[in-house]
């Protein structure tokens, strides 16, 4: 039996090896276990349920979540009204929405990147007309775009690509084979493109 003081008589963060570390193990375990049921629940909700009948889409959404987590910030997955992942409160916030609607188009995975940072025009001594900070939002539409049963005709697919681009979205079409072969590579490419586009807004 441990003395109570050994667990509760501590100060953070210098002596965090004691009770916090111990409790963290339990918290970690609970979070890891919870993840299984969270993902299962998420995959079975509408409107994304139909999309997730194909395993490569499941692999891709998980790859997006994992790669985004590695990039840091807060990451959230949305499927209709179902939400999983972090509560958004960081300077970098990434939202991945499944079967998202924009105008007349359905997008398999809509990735939104919000970044808060210093305004590139601001400098010490700048007058008040120059904002101190800047909030940038970029969206990327990631969708399957190869000929398969049920997929629109090539001309309609072109309309979708053009339409989404005209809405100001970055557009990344992918083929089934690509998602099957290397979901992590595809996820990394989409998120890196988005990150680069966001970063460019913060430099002059």
């Amino acid at each position, binding site marked *: 039996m441990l003395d*109570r003081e050994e*667990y509760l*008589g501590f100060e953070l963060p210098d002596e965090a090896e004691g009770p916090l570390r111990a*409790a963290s193990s339990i918290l970690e375990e609970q979070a890891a276990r919870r993840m299984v049921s969270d993902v299962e629940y998420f995959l079975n909700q509408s409107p994304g349920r139909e999309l997730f009948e194909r395993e490569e889409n499941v692999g891709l959404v998980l*790859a997006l979540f994992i790669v985004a987590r*590695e990039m840091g910030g807060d990451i959230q997955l949305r499927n209709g009204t179902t939400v999983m992942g972090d*509560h958004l409160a960081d300077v970098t916030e990434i939202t991945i929405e499944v079967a998202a609607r924009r105008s007349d188009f359905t997008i398999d995975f809509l990735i939104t990147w919000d970044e808060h940072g210093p305004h590139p025009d601001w400098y010490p001594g700048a007058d008040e007309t120059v904002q101190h900070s800047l909030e940038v939002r970029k969206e990327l539409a990631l969708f399957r775009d190869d000929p398969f049963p049920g997929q629109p005709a090539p001309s309609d697919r072109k309309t979708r690509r053009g339409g989404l681009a005209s809405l100001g979205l970055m557009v990344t079409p992918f083929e089934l084979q690509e998602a099957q072969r290397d979901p992590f590579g595809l996820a990394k490419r989409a998120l890196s493109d988005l990150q680069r586009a966001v970063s460019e807004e913060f430099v002059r």
Partner: protein
Amino acid sequence: MRMDATEVARRFLDSFRLHDVVHEEELEVDSTPWPNPTGPTGAAGHILRAQAAAKAESDFEDILNARAPGQDVLEHDENVGLLLALFITGRRRGGDVAFRNSGVVIGDHRNDVTHVTVEVGAKRSDFTVEFLVRRDETGPHPDWHPEAGDSVPDVLTLTRELALIREDHGFEEPHASDQKTRRHGLASLGMMVMAYTRDEAGRDPFGLARRALDDLERATADPFTR
């Protein structure tokens, strides 16, 4: 002697007689089989769980470090212990559990029929509540029946709040009459009130957390029966 995290966790369980809440074998992160162990989802499952575990620790640190000006709830070690106990016990019971402290939110999103929120240093009217535990429960309306038509909604969502407040008697503590005023004031706002002492929270935080969550669960379960 430096112990590894699992060993420390085991001793932690012993110390708080927690074996009925968290079993020792659960300390192995990979003990739960992923629903589909083959293909990309199976491979991803292990990484997702490891990431979730790593994130849990930093999330909790965020909550501990988020303090509104003048808020000193988490400067008391026994309150940190109680917060951990509320989190662990709440999660153990199922449903969605979230924590709030000065604008920082961690834990689950609201997807389940049961949603428990613990707010640290919550303000209600003129009073500060150390831990405000709120439970939202959605279930079938007890008055509904197949012939009821539109006059009775088929679903009922119920919210109950429990104010978990620290009350001690000592030189540095608020006067007993002020403590009584707070207790009655919070009760008049429609909250359940549970007072605890520093000693109680330090001695058995998990027992206290269990009692608070049990009372709240009972109070939300009652209206669903007629």
